[in-house]
């Protein structure tokens, strides 16, 4: 009986992966199809939808906005994430658990509620909705991911190295810059990449909190209403897919390297 189940499990796992990837695969397939309607059988191969993309000023604006928002949000959330992760892993202080669960709370709240509550506050304060308000929202939802990635980097970090540096006469800032920072650099870069990717793909916050300037997902949302624009959206989606994939692969490689580095010096082999 056991062996029977064990025999079926790999097949199940394979089917599960197929189920996960199959819908995503259709985006690139139909993005190079000559027909404007995504259906089988495929008509013919074309790069037309891709070459049209740079000729759409609205799209280029949206892409630039997304890039700016993503860079700002990932920098801010990583800086705030470093503060939190360092405090949580290095210090013991009253209310540590409460503080860290508050910081992680955006993960377990429906996003639409976060978005509308921020919207109310910003409108009540008389803040003009803009890309800046989008950044504020994105930072809020990126922080939990940053903290998770950075916690992994900071944990098991050998404190005696910092002590040694302090004993050898470094100031605490010097120790941080010359000992701590290089050790956790991969985790920091990985946090930057992860939060950039989240911000790049995030729709709800951007939809509610933006003014007249839109980010890429909001632009795509607007395009989805027109059936004729679908192939262009599919092409754009494919490019975003490839971009996210590359960024995340780099983030994953760095995260593993960071883990290995911490393990080999800290000796905390899990």
């Amino acid at each position, binding site marked *: *009986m*056991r062996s029977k189940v*064990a025999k079926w*499990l*790999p097949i*199940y*796992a394979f089917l*599960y*992966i197929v*189920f*996960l990837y199959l*819908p995503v695969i*259709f985006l690139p397939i139909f993005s190079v199809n000559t027909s404007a309607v*995504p*259906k*089988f*059988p495929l008509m013919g191969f074309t790069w037309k939808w891709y070459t049209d993309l740079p000729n759409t000023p609205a799209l280029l604006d949206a892409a630039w906005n997304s890039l700016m928002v993503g860079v700002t949000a990932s920098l801010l959330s990583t800086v*705030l994430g470093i*503060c*939190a992760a360092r*405090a949580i892993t290095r*210090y013991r*202080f*009253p209310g*540590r658990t409460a*503080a860290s669960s*508050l*910081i992680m709370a955006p993960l*377990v*709240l*429906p*996003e*639409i*509620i*976060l978005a*509308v*509550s*921020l*919207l*109310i*506050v910003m409108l*009540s304060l008389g803040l003009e909705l803009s890309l800046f308000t989008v950044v504020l*929202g994105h*930072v*809020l939802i990126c*922080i939990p991911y940053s*903290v998770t990635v950075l916690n992994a980097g900071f944990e098991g970090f050998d404190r005696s190295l910092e002590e040694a540096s302090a*004993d050898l006469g470094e100031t605490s800032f010097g120790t941080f810059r010359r000992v701590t920072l290089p050790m956790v650099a991969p985790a920091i870069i990985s946090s930057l990449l992860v939060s950039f990717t989240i911000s*790049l*793909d995030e*729709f*709800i916050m951007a939809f*509610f909190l933006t003014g007249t300037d839109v980010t890429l*997902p909001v632009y795509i949302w607007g395009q*989805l209403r027109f059936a004729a624009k679908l192939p262009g959206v*599919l092409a754009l*989606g494919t490019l*975003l897919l490839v971009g996210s*994939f590359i960024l995340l692969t780099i983030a994953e490689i760095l995260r*593993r390297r960071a883990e290995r580095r911490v393990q080999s010096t800290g000796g905390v082999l899990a």
Partner: protein
Amino acid sequence: MTAAAEGTTIAQAPRTKRSNLLQSEQAQGLALISPTLLYAMVLLVAPILVIVFYSFWSQDYLTVDRTFTLEQYRVALTEPIYRDLLLRSLWVSLVVSLITVVLAYPLAYYISFHGGSYKSLWLFLITIPFWTSYLLRVMSWKVILGYNGVLNSGLMGLGIIDEPSTSFLYNTNAVVITLTHAWAAFAVLPIFVSLEKVDRTLIEAATDLGDGPIRSFLRVTLPLSLPGVISALLIVMIPTVGDFVTPKLVGGKDGVMIATAIETQFKRGANWPLGAALSVITMTIVTLMAASIVFVIRQAGRRVR
């Protein structure tokens, strides 16, 4: 080592200094976490409090009346349209989270018990689709389930149906399928983590003591992995209740959920207090549902053992 090198200065330090040092350690930790904490306070706690306040106010066109009233809650809970939307959102999220967890468990089990040295590669493979744009993943289901979609043209090509079926897209089932796919990866991870923690010697012990593989799974592995099952259920259920994109893109008229009503009140309908009351009710019900799921599963786990 340092004490010896620096001579007597440290040895002579008064005792109070040590407790100061301890306090300053606490103070340093608090100071370090305070920017992030402040951010969460200003942009998370304060807005949620504001929304709770708003839900007890009322609005007449553009003026907000700040006298305490339960009117919004009465409307939200008794008007059939809102009641239906709430119930449907809860139903969809419950179904989606149950399906994702049931589908994810065998995979998590396989990776944990038979993954060998490829464990992290498996996990990476599973998480990649999750990181791709949510909007695009939902859209690809629209491409699959649509009138001219992949499923219809495929079925017609195979001669199973003669004309495109309209029954795939724009209904609650489409919402359930899309959400299940969107959250599939998220359910695997917590279950995998808790399966990793299961002490393998306990399973051996159960087998040695005469339990068959199914009995030892039901009495050892499954109960020990329940924390992962619970968090997987919650991690899927909580965001899906308030999902906005999927019902809008693939739900059609029959698949509308509460998020659409909340959006309408805040954007076009411009009745903030009602929108706030709907948000607060959604949050409350999600919390209650989460708590009851935790309770029921814990009880069931105890019963099995």
